[in-house]
């Protein structure tokens, strides 16, 4: 099977619009800071950048290598970004969902942000070199399931519309495969995956929703989750992580991208999202809601599993 090319020619025009808009809002003082993407040293690669000067606006780009979810800079690194004025941020549709969730959880205020949305056809998977062209194979798995190619609720969105072919939904297929297995087979699968974990906590560091000042998994009195990178603690860590993200994670898949051991972490998150959709008809990231599905209840909730 030959791979289909994903159309990314609009990214150049998008970059130009972002630059022009960034220049405008920085020079007329609407925002004090912009978080965006800039070219990095390796050919075709991109890295996050924080700019505070209008003359730096031309550094901003958007390419298939702009994989990061910049929303994370507004939670954990927020303290490092100057507080005065609004902060501008370049967001893809998936990043926008994270921001929506963070606003719902009172971590961010909409009026303190200037959102530059990016019409996005997809970005590269972490396993491919940044100079690779974007095909259905080199596309990040999350992009095959994307339902937010055009971010909603932004202050500025370039007018380009991405061409988005219908692709095989990689996570849905994998979840269906695992669900069809017996519990013992699934246990064997996850045991192998979790055994790889080195407890670097990159998944936690990169997650916009892991903003707790002190993580339950770092506490030692009482110690709920073993902190050493041994199979028992690893398994507990990933189960706790998936549980804490249930109903909140909108699938930016950053955890999976940064995992140095290639553990399919987003698979757990997507499974939880699927279950919450089925159980409580809730999908994270579409509207700012004060309460998530697990912080509210309905008296008529299903309790067929309770004796």
């Amino acid at each position, binding site marked *: 099977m030959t791979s289909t090319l994903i159309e990314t020619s609009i990214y150049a025009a998008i970059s130009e619009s972002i630059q022009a808009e960034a220049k405008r809002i920085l020079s007329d003082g609407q925002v004090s800071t912009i978080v965006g993407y800039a070219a990095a040293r390796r050919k075709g690669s991109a890295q996050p950048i924080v700019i505070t000067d209008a003359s730096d606006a031309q550094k901003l780009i958007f390419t298939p290598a702009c994989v990061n979810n910049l929303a994370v800079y507004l939670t954990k690194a927020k303290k490092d970004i100057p507080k005065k004025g609004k902060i501008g941020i370049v967001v893809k549709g998936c990043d926008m969902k994270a921001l929506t969730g963070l606003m719902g959880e009172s971590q961010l205020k909409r009026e303190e942000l200037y959102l530059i949305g990016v019409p996005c056809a997809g970005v590269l998977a972490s396993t491919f070199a940044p100079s690779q062209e974007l095909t259905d194979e080199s596309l990040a798995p999350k992009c095959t399931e994307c339902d937010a190619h055009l971010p909603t609720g932004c202050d500025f969105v370039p007018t380009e519309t991405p061409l988005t072919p219908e692709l095989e939904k990689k996570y849905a297929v994998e979840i269906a495969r695992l669900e069809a297995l017996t519990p013992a087979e699934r*246990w*064997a699968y996850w045991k192998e995956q979790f055994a790889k974990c080195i407890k670097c906590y990159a998944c936690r560091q990169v997650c916009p929703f892991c903003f707790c000042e002190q993580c339950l998994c770092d506490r030692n009195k009482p110690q709920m989750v073993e902190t050493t990178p*041994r199979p028992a603690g690893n398994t507990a860590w990933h189960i706790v992580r998936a549980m804490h993200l249930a109903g909140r994670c909108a699938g930016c898949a950053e955890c999976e991208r940064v995992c140095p051991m290639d553990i399919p972490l987003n698979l757990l998150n997507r499974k939880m999202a699927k279950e919450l959709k089925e159980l409580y008809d809730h999908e994270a990231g579409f509207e700012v809601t004060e309460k998530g599905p697990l912080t509210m209840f309905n008296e008529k909730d299903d309790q067929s599993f309770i004796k």
Partner: protein
Amino acid sequence: MHLAQQQHTFEPKIFAFVCTWCTYAGADLAGTSRMQYPSNVRVLKFPCTGRIDPVFILKAFQQGADGVLVSGCHPGDCHYIAGNFHARRRFAVFRKLLEFVGVDLNRLQFSWVSAAEGGKWVEVVTDLTEKVRNMGPMTEFKELAMEEQWSGAINTPELKEAYNAI
């Protein structure tokens, strides 16, 4: 009069996370009413089912539980008004997660037992104990806890040789 004790080859360990207002009082009632139920169950008292974090269940399995029971007030009876409603959602989702990771859900039982339902407590505990007894010991988490293998598994001949040479 006591019934003759039946001898079993395997006595499962059951951890019961119960709420103090309903199920704990229900278990008390079973005791004061001199009802018999398996002594396999270890009761842990919580203020409310809403206080029972899913991580407790994980911890119980890791520490050697063969079965876990979570029990509290019937919906609408919560001492804190809505703790059990929140718990119900949380555990509905947690069950799905455990199932996906490959844990046999027959080892995990949820129930509503009020302070007046000593009989129901006996029934729930007996059912779960017998079910888990027939399933045998829960080995998955215990094996994980016993494994001294760090992330760098010694899974190639070269590494094994080097390891044996130490």
